């Protein structure tokens, strides 16, 4: 409970004694490149393979001749939009971006760089953390949308090249009874997950004490806590918005 209170206070401190708007714009753009552009490769490769594997495994399980082939791509589509892209990519995102945020802030803390900012009269939490959170909240939904497309493309590629289903069936399936709200749901999840990952990782890094060993522990703890928070939020959002 004490940690939760400290986390809430920390979040509050991001909004006090802020710097100028132009200062934040520069930092946010820089962070968008760090968290978004630099995550493209890992998100792309994971999404393509998830799409391919999901298609093959769905086909493997749908053995009844009464189930049409296009159901395979329908299942892949709904899995991608509802769970694989927002949630599984969030776990990847926590591993890559969350650990990087915690490591960076932890190192800045133990090498007195955060103290140097405070001595200059800068609100270090707002200056360092707010741009990271905003960048994650901007970039992660974009990564999720990209991931959905790449999962569908990976599924199409694997499905058609192995002869599991025809391209006509695949394309028919991904358009069949499409529910637009699912995309809204995926974006809501992306917004919530990105905020949780960025804020928890920042919190863990910002309050690191000790030396390099503790920075490593803070990074690990940031990833673990972010993943748990993402999974809890995943369940809560599903219950709230789909239940």
């Amino acid at each position, binding site marked *: 409970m004490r940690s939760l209170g400290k986390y809430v206070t920390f979040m509050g401190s991001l909004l006090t004694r802020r710097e100028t708007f132009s200062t934040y714009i520069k930092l946010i753009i820089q962070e968008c490149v760090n968290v978004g552009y630099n995550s493209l490769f890992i998100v792309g490769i994971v999404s393509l393979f998830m799409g391919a594997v999901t298609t093959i495994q769905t086909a493997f399980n749908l053995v009844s001749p009464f189930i049409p082939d296009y159901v395979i791509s329908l299942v892949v589509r709904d899995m991608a939009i509802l769970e694989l892209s927002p949630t599984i990519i969030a776990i990847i995102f926590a591993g890559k971006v969350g650990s990087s945020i915690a490591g960076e802030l932890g190192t800045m803390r133990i090498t*007195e*760089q955060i*103290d140097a900012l405070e*001595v*200059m009269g800068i609100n270090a939490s707002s200056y360092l953390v707010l741009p990271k959170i905003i960048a994650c909240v901007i970039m992660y939904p974009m990564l999720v949308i990209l991931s959905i497309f790449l999962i569908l493309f990976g599924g199409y590629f694997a499905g058609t090249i192995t002869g599991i289903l025809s391209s006509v069936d695949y394309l028919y399936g991904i358009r069949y009874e499409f529910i637009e709200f699912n995309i809204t749901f995926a974006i809501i999840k992306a917004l919530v997950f990105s905020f949780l990952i960025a804020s928890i990782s920042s919190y863990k890094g910002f309050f690191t004490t000790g030396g390099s060993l503790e920075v490593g522990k803070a990074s690990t703890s940031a990833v673990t806590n972010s993943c748990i928070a993402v999974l809890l939020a995943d369940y809560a959002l599903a219950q709230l918005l789909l239940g």
Partner: protein
Amino acid sequence: MIEIKNISKSFKEKQVLFDISGTFLKGKNNLIIGSSGTGKSVLLKNIVGLITPDQGDIIYNERSFIYGSEQDRKQIRREIGMLFQGSALFDSKNIEENVRFPLDILTDFPIEEKIDRVNFCLERVGLLNINKKMPSEISGGMKKRVGIARAIVNRPNYLFCDEPNSGLDPQTGIKIDNLIKEITSEYSITTVIVTHDMNSVFEIGDHIMFLLEGKKLWEGSNGEVTKSDLKELNDFIFATKLMKQMYLH
């Protein structure tokens, strides 16, 4: 001038500072000395506002840093420059950006003026043509110099140095000490240095405060420090045979 009044600080049950009062003089090198773990750095962090004392006040030229308005505190912070023990340069910025950082944040000078000021400060600390290097590419002594350049770039009224020559060889340590001494008198700033290096005490210390186990035991000038009959101070200063030979015989 900086006055500290009855500063006490505890971390959980452990009291680290006990009712410390003193004065740091303008245009002088004010040293806080004492053995490791005695509360010097904690006192310094209280003075610069990184830690809030449990009780007491810190007065910067008749402005309270603890009980003053937010505006006063902001203004005082703008007048502070600090050199950290590990230099605390920003890893992601090159040397020029590091030194320019306080100007970028605290002023709206045109970029040309900022760069001129950065070059002037780097030249002042004896560093040329390293503007585009990253902190990881320069030596410990150079990092300290860059740290000093960053501390003075916004023309501070108060300069704080936390163990400025720790981790440096004796020659480089003396150069850093002399640089701080020159800058202090050149700009007539109030400099407060935390150190346990006896070279610094005798070379640059104008006004000295001795701490032991979180308590101020002695305060006086450089000339008086070797003549004190306080046993704890003598034990600290004359801990080595060399010092004993130099000053007692």
